[in-house]
């Protein structure tokens, strides 16, 4: 923690720190805390487009827990989040271990590997549409050459979700790789040298030294990725719009459709609030679980 600046007279009467903070706090408050409150209020209302909202108490939430579509979208989202985050972690860690030592062309390789995450998710959607597409896709061509059948990955009820997970893994494994690499490279060297002198195997060093020391970075990386994956929207919107049927209808997409296609703002708000509570619950749980298991 940095030392604070001591000059400037009596600090209790010095209002400069607050003056500097005020615009940010006010702006962020007005644009996030206020709408959040509005969201909660709206979630207790029936609010069709163009009509006055009517207070309906807990009705929206009661409908929500009995809404098979909402529950199935939650399940889809959860499968997506766990599969994508898990795969990205394993692959990212593998890449980080592969590239942690000096290597010819290391800079260029590293730069190339992080390209996917700089590309807008919408464009990532386009890239994979070009690959998955049944008439022109490179993927489909390869699959057809191998199996002799024409496959349309995105319109298959069983393959669409794994296909979307693969897209997410492609885009965000670089993120895990980059974070874990930075984490590994910033670890102190002494414990590793001592372990090597003691004749510990590479596997044991990894399991009992690298992993525990890397824990804070792992928690941050998993948390950020899981939160983003849980509210995935862009690629799903571009690639499948939730289809076929509701096979890839993730939660955010369902909120979007409920509010902006079916104009049920009250019901959409209650979904959004439920998602917010879930997100907060899960991030608290993840953080605690990792802190506890030291």
């Amino acid at each position: 923690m940095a030392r604070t600046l001591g000059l400037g007279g009596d600090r209790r009467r010095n209002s400069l720190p607050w003056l500097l903070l005020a615009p940010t706090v006010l702006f962020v408050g007005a644009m996030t805390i206020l709408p959040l409150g509005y969201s909660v209020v709206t979630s207790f209302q029936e609010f069709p487009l163009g009509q006055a909202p009517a207070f309906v108490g807990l009705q929206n939430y009661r409908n929500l827990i009995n809404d098979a579509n909402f529950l199935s979208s939650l399940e889809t989202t959860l499968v997506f989040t766990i599969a994508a985050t898990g795969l990205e972690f394993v692959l990212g860690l593998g890449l980080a271990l592969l590239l942690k030592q000096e290597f010819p062309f290391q800079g260029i390789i590293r730069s190339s590997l992080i390209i996917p995450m700089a590309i807008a998710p919408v464009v990532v959607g386009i890239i994979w549409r070009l690959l998955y597409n049944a008439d022109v896709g490179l993927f489909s061509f390869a699959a057809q050459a191998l199996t002799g059948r024409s496959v349309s990955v995105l319109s298959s009820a069983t393959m669409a979700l794994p296909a979307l997970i693969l897209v997410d893994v492609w885009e965000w494994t670089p993120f895990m790789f980059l974070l874990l690499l930075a984490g590994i490279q910033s670890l102190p060297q002494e414990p590793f040298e001592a372990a090597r002198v003691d004749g510990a195997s590479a596997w044991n060093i990894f399991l009992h030294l690298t992993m525990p020391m890397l824990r804070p970075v792992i928690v941050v990386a998993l948390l950020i990725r899981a939160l983003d994956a849980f509210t995935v929207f862009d690629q799903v919107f571009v690639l499948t719009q939730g289809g076929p049927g509701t096979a890839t209808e993730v939660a955010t997409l369902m909120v979007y459709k409920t509010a902006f296609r079916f104009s049920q703002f009250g019901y959409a708000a209650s979904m959004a609030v439920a998602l917010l509570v879930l997100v907060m619950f899960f991030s608290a749980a993840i953080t605690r679980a990792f802190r506890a298991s030291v």
Partner: protein
Amino acid sequence: MPRLTSTTRRRLWLGVRVILIVLALIITLLPVYWMVNTSLKTQVEVFTSPPTLWPENPTLSNYINLFVRRHLGAYLLNSVVIVGSAVALSLIIGSLAAYSLARFGKARLQEKVNFWVLAPRMIPPVALVVPMFLILQQLGLINKKLGLILVYTAFNLPFVALMMRSFFQEIPVDLEEAAMVDGASRLRSIREIVLPLASPGLVATSIFSLIVTFNEFFFALILTSTPAAATLPVGTAALIGKTQTLYGEMAAAGVVAAVPLVIFALLVQRHLVRGLTMGAVK
């Protein structure tokens, strides 16, 4: 299997590493290459089977069509105006807060303020989208650039404040104190000592905000719709519906939206980790 000597084992491991790294590079770059490749093909060549690995008659007609017939220029301009304004606003406002957090905070109070600056960033966008739409509708700011500028500024602020704080903290307090002991006002010491030293941080932070804001789709989709205000990602997504099987144009739009951002990201590589974790990992 005979016991391998340590040199053979090392060579074997090196070989495995090289193969795995090359594989990772191919998987990462091939999809991107395929988009560029498709964008340079004629409509006929796009549909040839087997697909051609590079365009036989490379053409820019897809790009030209996008700008002449599909308003891509307008979307691009909207993005530049909206992203530029939002990044500039959040950088000015957020740096003030960052300086305050870095220099004046007493440890406990600072943790609290940290939380309140950071907490909004943890709120998933979906929780805000319905009320944001309703509020901006009442203000008449739907499908207006100003609406999106305000939203993006608010989203960028917590990020800018935390990221700039971590850069300000790296500038030794002693330098500032020395200047002030020598009679410089705080404003002057900020202008002549802190800002120049923090300028790499300012550049990195603004490029980061720029990447995130430029690529944002969810709010842009809901708050803007026509070439009067819609951003490049929204315009690109709309194109998918309109062009149907014009895969060449779709690919070209993707290239236009991706290239500048990839260049920016490579420029801030050194600060990428810090940016991605909002200063949590350096």
